[in-house]
Structures are given as C-alpha cells and as structure tokens.
C-alpha cells in the first residue's frame, strides 16, 4: 500500500467519477444509468478512504481519520436505500408501460 501515492488513488477515484457522469449522460436504460450513479458513489468512497489513510492517519488526528471512515459507512447505507427505492420505481414503470427506455418517457414537457 505504501508503494502507491495518494495521487494515484485520487486519480483513480476521479476517473471512476467521470466515467459515471459520462455514463449517466449517454446511456438510455435507467438500470445502466443507475449503475453509473453507483460508480460515482464508489468513487466518493475511494476518495474518502484514501484521504483518511494518507492525510489523516495516526494517533495524532484519530478524530479526523474516523470522520472520513464514518462517512463511507453512511454513503454505503444511503446508497442501499436508494437502490431499493429506485428499483421499485423502475418496476412500477415497467408494469405500466412494458418499456423502461428513458427516451420513451416523454409525457411531461413544455
């Protein structure tokens, strides 16, 4: 772990985040869009953990390190709640329309 510098982790995290953002913009299937959003959240988790491990480790700033690690736990919990609601909504749409392509969702405009 000591062989990889902090910049490596943050670089990977930014790459994952941008991949997620691009995916959300170009994909048309809500489930794939949702996977891309999860990728963004995982990029966030990686960034938090890398900062906590490299910048705020050690006994001197144990509170600072713990703050980042706790945040990751909360992000994972909230992401799980979001999945439950999101898949529920997608199911409801599928039952109504038998089609979940976001381009077909065009009733609301003006």
């Amino acid at each position, binding site marked *: 772990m000591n062989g990889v510098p902090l910049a490596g982790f943050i670089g990977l*995290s930014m790459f994952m985040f941008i991949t997620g953002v691009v995916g959300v913009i170009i994909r048309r299937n809500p489930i794939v869009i949702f996977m891309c959003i999860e990728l*963004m959240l995982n990029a*966030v988790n990686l*960034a938090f953990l890398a900062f906590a491990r490299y910048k705020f480790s050690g006994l001197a700033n144990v509170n600072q390190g713990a*703050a980042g690690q706790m945040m990751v736990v909360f992000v994972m919990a909230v992401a799980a709640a*979001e999945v439950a*609601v999101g898949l529920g909504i997608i199911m409801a749409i599928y039952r*109504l329309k038998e089609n979940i392509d976001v381009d077909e969702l065009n*009733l*609301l405009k003006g």
Partner: protein
Amino acid sequence: MIPTIDWGVIGPVAIVAVTGMIALIVHMITGNSEKNFTQKVTVFGLLIALTSLLAAGGSERFVLQEMVVMDRLGSVGQLLTVFSALIVALVSPAYLEAKRIKLGEFYPMLAWATVGGMIVCCTRNLLVLFVGIEILSISLYVLAGLHRTSKKSEESAIKYFLLGAFATGFLLYGIAMFYGATGSLNMSTLVSYWLHGAPENKILLSLSFALIAVGIGFKCSLAPFHQWTPDVYEGAPTNVVAFMATGGKVGAFVALWNFADSFGHAGRFVGMTIATLAVLSMLVGNVLAMAQKNIKRLLAYSSIANAGYVAVAAASVAIAFRLNHIALIFFLFGYVLTSLGVFVVVLAMAKDGEEPMSLDDLKGLASRSPILAYSLVVFVLSLIGLGPVSGFLGKLFILKDALTANLAWLAVVMVLNSIFGAFYYFGMLRSAFAPAEGDARPISLSIPQTFSLSVCVVGVIGAVVFYAPLLAHLGLR
C-alpha cells in the same frame, strides 16, 4: 465518558420520526378504513412536534459534538417544515379521495420527508447535511410515484429519482474534496483553510465548492439545475407537490444560506458565483413561467424564481460578512405560507378523479367559490410582493441585504424580475374571475380545508402584526 445530551434540541425531530413509524403500524392494523386513523395519528404527532418547537424557543445550542446546531434560522426552518407537513396532511384526505389514490402510506412517508427537512435545517456538518438531504429526497421519490396507475406520476418519479441521485453524487464528491482539504466535515473549519491553507488545499476547496453548489443547487432548483422541477411538479400528485414546494424547499434554502455563510469574510468569489445562479434562476423562472398554460408548471417556474430570490440573500451573506438571517426568515415565512395557500386552492378544486390542470380550468372560480377566489387574490398579491403582505416584507429585507453587500445591480435585477412575475401571476387571477366554462357547480370546502386556507390567509395578511412577536419568542437578535 458518555457526554450528556440536551434531548430537547433533537426532540421535535425524534417526535416526527416516531410519528411516522406509529402511523405506519396503525395503517397496517386498520388498513384503508373510513375513519382514516393513519391521517389522524400523523396530524396529532405533527401538532405535538409543532408545539414542542414553539415551546423550545430558538436560543443557540450545540449538541452531539456540534453535529446539530440549533440556531434561530434552524428553529424557524423546522417550524415551517413541520407546519407545511401539517397543512398538507390536513388537506390530503379530500384530494386522495377525489383522485382515488387509496394509499395510506402517504402519511408515514410525509412524516419521514419532514424529518429529513428538519435535519437539514439544524446542522452545519456535511455528514448530517447529506443524511438529512437523502432522508428528504428518498421519501419524496416514493411520494412522487404515489399514483401507481398514472403514467405521468411514475414518469415524474423516475425523472426525479435519476436526476436526484445524480446530484447527490456531485454533492458527495464535493464533500470528499472538502474532507481532503480540511480533514473535517464541519463547515465552520472552512474559512481558515480557505484563507491560510496550502495551495493544493485551495484547489481542492474550490472544486469542493463547485460540486457542493451543484448538489445544493439541484435541491433548491436553482437554474441551471432546475430542469427536473416543472416535470416533477406536473406529474406528481398535487398534495405531494404542495409539500415538495414548501417544506421540501425550506431545508434546501437554509442549507444554501448556511453554506454561503460559512465562507465568512472570504466569500467574495463564492458570493459572485451564487449571484450568477440567482440571476439565471430569476430570469429562467419568470420568463418561462409567462409561456405556461399548466398551473402546476407555472407554479414550478414560480418556485424556481423564488429560489433565485433566496440565492440573492445567500450571495449577500457570502459577500457582506455576518449579515443577519432575518431577511431569509421573513422571506421563508412569506414563501411557505403563500405557496401552501395557492396549493390548498388548487387541491380544493379536485373532484371526481379530475383536478385543474390548465389555467382555463380555473375559470369561474369566483362564482363557484368566492372564498377560494378571494384567498387566491391575497396569495397572488403576496407572490408579486404588493402591499403590506408577507411576500413584500421578505423581498424588502432581501433587497436591503443586497444593498448592504454592495450588490446594487443584483437588487435591480431582482426588482425587475418581481415586475415580470406580476404578468403571469395576474394571468391566474384573470382566469379565476372569468365566467365559468363547462363545470359550474359550486365547490364545497371541508372543515380542514377551510381551516388550512384561513391559517394561510391570516398568516399572509397579518405578516406585519404576527411575525415580530413570533420572532421575538424564538429569540431573534
């Protein structure tokens, strides 16, 4: 050592959360009974929470390692969130009956959305802010899709959900960058790092500001992050929209203001960025609203314009260090009471599975129900900001703040926008006082509807009389 906790500070939040749980259990036991116990339990719980908030007053207190900061703005925000949930819970049974949405789960979800809004109001910690925003949003995603057999309702739910989760990603990445620069999740650490931190920290903080602004801007529906608002408002059930536009927005507005305030005396750049968003929102909201024929879309653009006015207050506080939050408090009072009133009028017109969709459906309101029509006059005057009603007071204080912060150009833009706003708001009145077309049956109001309407009307008209004692009770500086 276990620290002693002042439970009184987080008591109201806990009361509303428990109310939601009890309401859900009651709903499982009684089902969709005629007596509607679920709604009664929810209303009762919200009333207790409202009373305890009023009894607690608004002195500044920090609890749970400063994760909860209860200041005056926080208690006013919580008060308004609970109040709007209460009014929505009161007028919902008639609407859900009229639209034939037989889901009592509405009330527990409403209570939990209120919990989220209350949490956002009383914190300056980004972890708690994130959890609060998510509790609020996830409940609202479910509520937007409440009308399971309506394609429009489901479409609004999925649009809101996908865009909301996307914005949450930005907010979170911003928080991660903030943490990387400061090693803390508390907004109050920001100033010293912004002014004296290492250069790489400043880059991280700038990035963090941009990303968090996207996240909070989405929740406030500031332009250019506003696209979801008209679609969701049009598709979602109107009683849900009534809460989304009032209680759901208060938390986001308070968070925006707190975030801008936390830059302290280093906020020039931040203030100018927020001012740009404010100008965009006011223009987008007011210009696009003029072209609207659909009432709910019109109200959506109106709420975008109002978010712009709040952003003016936030920009002023970021630039002029240590401005008072009295302007925002007055504006929020006016905004919540007025918007709730308009939605109560629209909700009362729903009948036999139909509800007013276009401005033409408002025609004949004056003859069908003079009470609704004249209440609408009061609310429209307040939305425009005419006369000594609450909408006028809020805008006046915000303008004063903008001038204190040397943002005269922003104040001018805001005044011009208020004048633009008059056009489409008067359009609503013109329809309401036109002769009836088609259905001309009189509209009868139930007791809860009359009560809610009169509370909003009295609050809007009596702004000058009521607010000063109320704010004094809450301990305003």
